[in-house]
């Protein structure tokens, strides 16, 4: 057995005698595609809502809450899924967020938020992480679907019009500054600014 292994090991370390370089590179290329494809398919799968709510922490809390909002059910029938708001589209950012998410898998295994009470205790901390991210990227994920340029402000409620005009004019404030809690229930907001900083005297 050992000998057999040794034999193959040697064979593997020898430079190829029978295969042409072309065939080898083609083989490598094809394997590359298969691995890359497999990797991306796996990545795609972790973007599906089915995956996101495969742990009950998400299904019982944030998913249940999302179902009561306009992003799940509305007159036009267009809806947002978890990854639309939580996973950046750009590849490097996406991988970054996924690495972060692997920590969340530990949280799941150790039961960090496995009851409603524990979830509520951690909600502010988790929410703040998302607010920071959206603030830093100027609410990029929201703007993948919504854009001021294409909003007919005159169709909007007067207060929405005025706020959006001012945000556009001053360039201050991004969607998440004013639209927290758009998809889930909010924690105690006592110490969290509800409007862009600098707007309030």
């Amino acid at each position, binding site marked *: 057995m050992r000998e057999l292994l040794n034999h193959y090991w040697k064979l593997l370390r020898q430079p190829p005698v029978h295969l042409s370089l072309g065939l080898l590179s083609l083989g490598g290329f094809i394997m590359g595609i298969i691995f890359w494809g497999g990797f991306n398919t796996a990545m795609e799968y972790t973007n599906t809502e089915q995956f996101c709510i495969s742990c009950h922490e998400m299904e019982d809390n944030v998913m249940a809450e999302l179902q*009561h*909002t*306009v992003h799940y059910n509305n007159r036009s029938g267009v809806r947002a899924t978890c990854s639309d708001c939580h996973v950046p589209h750009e590849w490097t950012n996406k991988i970054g967020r996924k690495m972060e998410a692997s920590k969340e898998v530990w949280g799941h295994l150790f039961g960090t938020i496995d009851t409603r009470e524990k979830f509520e205790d951690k909600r502010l901390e988790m929410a703040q992480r998302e607010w920071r991210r959206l603030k830093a990227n100027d609410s990029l994920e929201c703007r993948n679907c919504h854009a001021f340029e294409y909003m007919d402000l005159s*169709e*909007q*409620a*007067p*207060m*929405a019009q*005025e*706020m959006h005009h*001012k945000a556009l004019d001053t360039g201050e404030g991004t969607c998440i500054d004013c639209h927290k*809690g*758009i998809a889930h*229930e*909010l*924690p*105690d*907001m006592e110490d969290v600014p*509800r*409007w862009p900083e600098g*707007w*309030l005297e």
Partner: protein
Amino acid sequence: MRHLSLFSLLAALLWIVTAVQADDPARDLDRPGPTPELPPQQDRGKSQLPANNPEGPLVIPHRTRGHQVDLRHNRCMDCHGDQAPEEIRATPLPSSHLRDRDGKKHEGMSGGRQDCRTCHVPDHRTGQEAWGGH
């Protein structure tokens, strides 16, 4: 004779009751009242809508879909609280809402006022026409 006067007394009572009731606006609940017209926006701090009943809770002239009101957060206060930005122009909470039923003044909102929608209901007609809500 006694029977007759008792009878006419009852009849008179009945007449008074129906007459009074006919004047009671509460009997016309099914008939839509006039839609309040919204004057151009005025100063923050004064109601901008005419009240149907000056003593009663005002209807909400905008949609409240998705507004969280619970012990963790009260979305109404983001606009009607004293921390709201000038641009919103929402009438601030009246001082009555800072007193409890014994008239005692509190630091924040009194407990009985927390759940705004027990008293204030959205008026979809004004909501639609004046404030573009759904």
